[in-house]
């Protein structure tokens, strides 16, 4: 990429250093991001993330009750269960999104490549680089498409030159399957895109910092079937590179996109297994009743 793909006047500088915004944490990174990605966890099939007896309380209310799960490399893990069963709460624990909720308390252990993410010296900013998140409702920044993607890499100093940044933007949009639709309008505001395009923009924004794990909290619930299909196709492609954890209320979607599924009920993990086994021969009666729609 040699051309200025933003097309923004005055955007011709060749050296973009990390922009110092008001980060939630001013602590320096406590691990080397580049090195951490080169570890052997993926290569030898060890879990990327491990949750051991994780309990989450909102004040006195127990939302997740001693949940244990492994998140394997290059797999999509679907979390299913009725509303209020704790699946989104557990998902948000995986990159400490619950830290911002007053009265939220987490016990147990969650590790990312054997590092305790709730250790006192863990900085949440690099953690959230490594464990990115896509939300239920597309939430692009009210900025250009280019800036939506470029913001996080700028923040984390991932590009030294304008050319490098252009490369990151293009690559992220390509991997999110959005490049051909927006390449001529990168100046356009991200909020002017359709719902499906906005969600893919958010996914592109997440993968721009090259995370290891992507968390998705009902990413298609606000989308039409065509946009949903595109996101599902994208999830399948992204799996080759990342571990993905998806919370979904659509069992069809869980069956279509995931390799393993965990069923939650009243804060407990009732059953975890290969998606095919869960949806054809569940071991637990409660799982059977949930997937067949015989409880409610």
């Amino acid at each position, binding site marked *: 990429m040699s051309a200025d793909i933003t097309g923004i006047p005055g955007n011709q500088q060749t050296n973009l250093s990390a922009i110092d915004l008001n980060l939630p944490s001013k602590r320096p990174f406590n691990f080397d991001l580049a090195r951490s990605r080169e570890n052997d966890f993926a290569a030898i099939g060890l879990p990327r993330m491990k949750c051991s007896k994780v309990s989450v309380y909102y004040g006195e209310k127990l939302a997740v009750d001693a949940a244990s799960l492994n998140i394997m490399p290059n797999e999509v893990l679907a979390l299913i269960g009725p509303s209020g069963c704790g699946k989104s709460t557990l998902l948000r624990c995986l990159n400490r999104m619950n830290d911002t909720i007053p009265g939220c308390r987490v016990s147990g252990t969650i590790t990312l490549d054997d590092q305790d993410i709730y250790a006192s010296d863990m900085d949440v900013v690099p953690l959230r680089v490594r464990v990115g998140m896509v939300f239920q409702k597309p939430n692009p920044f009210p900025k250009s498409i280019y800036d939506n993607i470029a913001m996080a890499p700028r923040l984390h100093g991932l590009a030294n030159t304008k050319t490098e940044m252009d490369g990151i933007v293009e690559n992220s949009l390509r991997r999110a399957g959005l490049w051909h639709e927006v390449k001529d309008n990168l100046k356009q505001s991200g909020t002017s895109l359709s719902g499906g395009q906005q969600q893919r923009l958010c996914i592109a924004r997440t993968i721009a910092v090259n995370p290891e794990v992507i968390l998705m909290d009902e990413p298609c619930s606000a989308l039409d079937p065509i946009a949903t299909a595109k996101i599902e196709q994208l999830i399948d492609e992204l799996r080759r590179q990342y571990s993905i954890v998806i919370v979904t209320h659509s069992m069809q979607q869980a069956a279509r996109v995931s390799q393993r599924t965990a069923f939650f009920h009243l804060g407990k993990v009732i059953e975890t297994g290969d998606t095919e086994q869960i*949806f*054809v021969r569940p071991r637990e009666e409660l799982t059977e009743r949930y997937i067949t729609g015989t409880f409610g």
Partner: protein
Amino acid sequence: MTNTFDRHTIHRFDEELQAIHFQVLEMGELVVNQLCLAMESVKNKDLTLAHRIIDSERTVNEMEVAADTVVCAILAKRCPKGRDLRTVLATSKIVNNLERIGDEAVKLANFVAYMHLDGHGDANNFPLDDICRLGGVSIGIVRSAVGVFERLDGEQARRVVEFHRTLDQQFQHGLHHLMDFLQAEKTNVSNAVSQVMMMKALERIGDHAQRIAELVVFQLEGEEPRHHTPNMAQDFPLEE
């Protein structure tokens, strides 16, 4: 609060599953009846009855098409999972096996029609004991298979699968008798071949009934007992 009724939240789905179950049972009863009549026509050399069975093939075929249509509709509308998915898949395959049993019954009737077309009957005057015995076992096994589907009785279904071995033995026994008879007597070869084919049809009927019982096990337990041959080595020892 969670309650755990056995009914689906969408009651219409229960009705659809129940309807297809009864539809298959009805087809099963018709096929058992057809098989009984076919054996009657063999035993009594009843050409008229044989023609009635041949004519009734259309009804079984129509029932198969109707059941398949319902199965397609359930798959498209309800996207069943777990036990429901197994029920729909098993039902679809059971319907297919019943239709094949119906075909074999018609085949028996066709042989009766062929052998007695000229009004003289079997030129060999071969004793029908073996065929009738084989027929009796076949009817029993098909009836049992339909019964286990009706009651969804996994334990009994496993017994039906085991019982199928008796039919195989009967088939081998009958075949040896026929061969002995052919060697000893002057025979009409075409009629002898027809009798072999009839025995083979009855043996195939047993195979389909066994498959129905296996599908009931799959429906209930999610396990496929198909192609399990634990006693194979025992039956055919490699060394003395």
